[in-house]
């Protein structure tokens, strides 16, 4: 019984972080039709910024906010300086793949840059709250005060985002620009600016994912961190499971992936984690290629 409860708790915690990363990927995909591999690098950079802030302000929470704001700024800069130029310069057959491959290049550059400036330095982020599991009836749960905060923080961000997207003018502009940029422009929406906004929200979400995930794991940061590569891969799988277009889909995809991986971890074998994630991805792509929330037919013009 406790194993089952623990499995669910582990799944929800890791799943909510995957969901955050998936949201970042979905937001970028929706605004520019690019799968942003650099997201892992941006999240890593943001988390390093957060690490520096902790040293300066001695507060994890202040650092989290600063990391999200600067993560948003970096993401906006990448869109304005890098992506816009890329879209302008690339035409013909390369135009479809060039931006995606370019984000891979950017990922390498960001990681390399961090390596140059921060490589030799030991960087560890410790959880701001106890990460020792709650004890219930003599059993230790796989759920700690810090994990509770992670899940709540992700929940609050998701509710906040969904309110912004469905209830506000900015949200309407964001959705319209994603679904039909030309009609949005004809309606007077400044689509370029809205795209940049989409990227910056994604940057903030990725920063939050990195800042919350790192102290929940080993806490150690490194320029070639495997943890951030996994975050990108799992976030991407979650996004694809969710249909790549839908924010709710990203959340469901993240939680589903988290739960499935937790079952494998607790009942099967931890070494199978990675392969399970990819099997899940392939199964979804084969059985329901549009994802869980994706539409069956292609979008009408």
């Amino acid at each position, binding site marked *: 019984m406790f194993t089952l409860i623990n499995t669910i708790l582990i799944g929800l915690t890791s799943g909510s972080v995957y969901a955050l990363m998936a949201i970042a990927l979905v937001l970028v995909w929706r605004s520019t039709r690019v799968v942003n591999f650099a997201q892992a690098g941006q999240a890593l950079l943001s988390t390093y910024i957060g690490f520096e802030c902790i040293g300066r302000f001695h507060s994890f929470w202040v650092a989290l906010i600063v990391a999200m704001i600067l993560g948003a700024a970096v993401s906006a800069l990448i869109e304005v300086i890098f992506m816009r130029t890329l879209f302008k310069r690339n035409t013909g057959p390369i135009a479809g793949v060039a931006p995606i491959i370019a984000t891979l290049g950017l990922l390498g550059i960001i990681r390399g840059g961090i390596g140059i400036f921060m490589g030799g330095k030991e960087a560890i982020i410790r959880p701001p709250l106890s990460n020792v599991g709650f004890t219930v009836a003599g059993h230790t749960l796989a759920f700690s005060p810090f994990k509770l905060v992670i899940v709540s923080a992700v929940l609050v961000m998701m509710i906040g985002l969904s309110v912004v997207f469905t209830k506000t*003018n900015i949200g*309407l*502009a964001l*959705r*319209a620009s994603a*679904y*039909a940029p*030309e*009609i*949005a*422009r*004809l*309606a*007077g*929406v*400044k*689509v370029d600016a809205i795209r940049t906004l989409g990227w910056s929200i994604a940057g903030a979400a990725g920063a939050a994912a990195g800042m919350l995930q790192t102290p929940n794991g080993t806490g150690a940061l490194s320029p070639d961190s495997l943890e951030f590569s996994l975050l990108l891969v799992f976030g991407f799988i979650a996004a694809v499971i969710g249909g790549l277009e839908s924010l709710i889909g990203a959340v469901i995809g993240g939680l589903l992936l988290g739960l499935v991986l937790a079952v494998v971890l607790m009942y099967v074998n931890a070494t199978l984690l990675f392969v399970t994630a990819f099997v899940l991805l392939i199964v979804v792509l084969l059985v329901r290629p549009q994802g869980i929330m994706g539409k069956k037919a292609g*979008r*009408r*013009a």
Partner: protein
Amino acid sequence: MTLIVNDLCVDHGAIRALDGVSMQVERGQLAAVIGANGAGKTTLLRTLSGLKSATSGSATWKDQNLLHSKPEKLVRFGVSHVSEGKSVIPELSVEENLNLGALWRRNAKESAETRVKIFETFPRLQERSAQLADTLSGGERQMLAIGRALMSKPDLLLLDEPSLGLAPLVIAQIFTSIRELTTQMGLTVVLVEQNAMSALEIADIGIVLNLGRVAAKGSAQSLIDNPQVRAAYLGY
């Protein structure tokens, strides 16, 4: 307040889509632009609304050059474009599609007044305001597309083939509404149509495009009476 297009040339790559088009639409007039597929009708509208850039020539509205401006800027200048193929966003509700057109307008009260006017003309939109645009029929979508354009409070309305894919009865209804709206809201309208007869019947003036050039122009009635235009475009 006259729309003056002078010697307008537009290229699609190596192909000249518009070749020295000149036309003039007075304020409050409804101009029908007719012609076969590939005559350059859609290109003309896309150039006027800023979606396509011109190679040479000029187009002025309210004494300002329309060319080389972005659509989002031209909307604020009073130019609203309903692009080809029912330009609504199916993933958004009817109400959201309408609101989209008024997002940039700061005056919520004015926007609400415009919405009332649109609902008076197209009561179906009010009945369905909470539904996704995806669930609308073709005719309703066209009404919504026009409604969205009107929400931007235009004085120059560009309509691209509102009859496309619609049943004759629905076409008649939509064209009647277009005529009414033009008069009631004091709009100047450029209506691009393959359905030449329906368009000329509600229009004040007509322009016939053929392979990117103006083949004939004049009052709508004069075009209807013109034997060559009748034979080539009206089919009798």
